């Protein structure tokens, strides 16, 4: 068992689109495993990772598990600190209204602060 003195802040940065590779799923699975360990967890959608949050996905069409409810899944596992990088949204001309809810938008300062406070960063 892990005691409290070992409690660390682990940040996951998910940077890939949802289905073209399994990295988005990999990042999510790792974060969910970390949630079970009762660590302080941040989950950041960055670069092409913001595309995971687009509404109206239906991956049945390509025989994949739809990732669109990823924000809900994170919350279900107690990961409350889910963020989306504003700069990445702007670069892709995506409005926050196009996205799944339950994710806070952060600017550059917000991102550097999250990274600053992390003990470990998984950058996928």
């Amino acid at each position, binding site marked *: 068992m*892990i005691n409290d003195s*070992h409690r*660390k802040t*682990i940040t996951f940065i998910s940077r890939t689109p949802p289905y073209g590779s*399994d*990295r988005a799923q*990999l990042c999510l*699975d*790792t974060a969910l*495993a*970390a949630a*079970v*360990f009762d*660590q302080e967890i941040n989950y950041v959608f960055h670069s092409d990772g913001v595309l995971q949050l687009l509404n109206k996905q239906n991956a049945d069409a390509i025989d994949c598990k739809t990732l669109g409810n990823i924000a809900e899944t994170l919350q279900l596992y107690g990961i409350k600190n889910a963020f989306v990088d504003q700069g990445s949204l702007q670069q892709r001309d995506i409005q926050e209204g196009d996205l799944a809810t339950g994710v806070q938008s952060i600017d550059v300062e917000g991102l550097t602060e999250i990274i600053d406070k992390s*003990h*470990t960063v*998984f*950058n*996928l």
Partner: protein
Amino acid sequence: MKFSIVLYAAPYSSEAAATALKFAKAVLGQGHTIYRLFFFNDGVHAANRFATVAHNEISLQQQWDSFIAQHEIDSVVCVTSAFKRGVLDEQEAKRQQFGVASMYGSSEIAGLGQLIDAAVNSDRVVNFG
């Protein structure tokens, strides 16, 4: 310092498996310890003992195996990544009636919890992919 090293990429497809090995050797060479190696995603191919190369060459897989065995490093191959890529330990090979394991015995099969445990208990986690 206690390091953990995570490999995400298959040998030969990218340089990462070779880089990670050189890095791991330098970690020990400088008197640090390796808390755990974690082979994840395509990185599990590094533990495939069925990889063969020309006579006068040593495969990256063999190099990883000797390094792990020689230094008795705690080495984990991610179960969900490994089985679907045909990297099977003895138990799973038996269960599937393949008779013989395709994974080196120097590593063991385990879940993602071992990666998080490594993140919690190491001073540094270094990822290669």
